[in-house]
């Protein structure tokens, strides 16, 4: 235990640098996946068949490709097409795209859970599709969507470790580097695990808060 604490004080500063990048990758890809997911979901529920089919196909393609392959593609293949991304950019873009599929399905489920009578009421006061979405459907769908959204945040935080495979020196990669140079595997990976857990706890509490709020209605 004493040895662990000594290792911890020594490695913590380096690992904290990794935490910074972990948070950056997580937040960046969360924002991107939320925006893209909302776009896919709105396309999916739109009355334009072409848009809906396009979005459905896109979601399935994204879901069918492992995140790690998507990251490799963005980081190692895109330069061949003249698009060179930094490792951080590729990580945020890759995770953002990968998670947009889950976000889209969650948003769609939320939108479709709203009573059809709400849409009809909006239509009878002359609202068009977009106004109905913005003023009537989405504000109500948010409550339904939030608990799963919190879970997606937790998954994304953990999956941000996959950015290590394309050289982003986030928490997992920093841990691996320290471990392989010091051979203190136990101390290092215990620390890494504890730090992921520490970052997850506020999110877990947030999900519980959302769920309580949703249940109260």
């Amino acid at each position, binding site marked *: 235990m004493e040895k662990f604490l000594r290792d911890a004080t020594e490695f913590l500063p380096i690992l904290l640098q990794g935490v910074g990048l972990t948070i950056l990758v997580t937040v960046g890809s969360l924002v991107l996946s939320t925006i893209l997911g909302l776009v896919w979901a709105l396309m999916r529920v739109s009355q334009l068949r072409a848009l809906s089919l396009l979005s459905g196909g896109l979601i399935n393609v994204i879901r069918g490709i492992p995140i790690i392959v998507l990251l490799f593609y963005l980081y190692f293949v895109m330069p061949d097409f003249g698009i060179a991304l930094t490792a951080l950019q590729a990580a945020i873009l890759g995770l953002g795209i990968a998670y947009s599929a889950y976000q889209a399905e969650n948003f769609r489920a939320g939108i479709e859970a709203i*009573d059809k*009578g*709400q849409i*009809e*009421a*909006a*239509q*009878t*006061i*002359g*609202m*068009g599709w977009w*106004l109905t979405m913005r*003023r*009537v459907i989405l*504000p*109500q769908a948010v409550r339904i969507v939030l608990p799963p959204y919190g879970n997606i945040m937790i998954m994304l935080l953990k999956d941000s470790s996959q950015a290590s495979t394309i050289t982003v020196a986030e928490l997992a990669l920093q841990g691996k580097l320290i471990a392989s140079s010091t051979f203190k595997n136990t101390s290092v990976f215990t620390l890494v695990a504890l730090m992921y857990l520490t970052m997850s706890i506020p999110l877990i509490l947030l999900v519980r808060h959302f769920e309580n709020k949703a249940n109260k209605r």
Partner: protein
Amino acid sequence: MIELRNVHKSFGSLEVLKGITASVEKSEVVCIIGPSGSGKSTILRCINGLERYDSGDILVEGARVERDTPSIVTIRTRVSMVFQRFNLFPHRTAIENVVEGPIFVKREPRAEALERGRALLARVGLAEKADAYPAQLSGGQQQRVAIARALAMQPKAILFDEPTSALDPELVGEVLGVMRKLADDGMTMVVVTHEMGFAADVADRVLFIDGGVIVEQGAAKSVLNQPQHARTQDFLRRVLHPL
């Protein structure tokens, strides 16, 4: 002001409207009665463009109702609708429900819309409930808010789709009272209802619909008191003397 000419409508292989021809004049109150599944609600939903119709014409002030063209928005602002299940927006207060259309569809200045909205809530007897959410209101109160929301669009006519069917019996009266006042004020109304008392007292004309056709129509008193058709007689007997 509303005219239906030989309107047909099918859901899949089920033909629900088999050639409906009818008209509603300005300031007229027309009640549509008939057994459930007879196509009563579908007529209202077609007039408002909530459903497509397959053939025939529906005209509102001379303009043909076509669900998939931009003109439907104009028609919907002229012809409002009140639903069986109220369909208030649960995330907005009563007054917000009422001013939603005026502010976001008609682009009225907010202050003006709010003032008018409060007056409308007062008109349906709910001035003091302006800031309540729908979940805090009784069914009867919710339906009166829905009527105020319909009125807020300053429609030329209002369609009522079984407005009291989802209400506890003791709350029916307050909604019918508001509707009667509207009729007295000269609002054009088409009401699908099972409230024969309301039809008898308030309606100018009654249409009896069964199996997707208008079986009988005429002045409210004569259709309800001296129905000519066997089907009408049978229906009224069952509604008025269920035991």
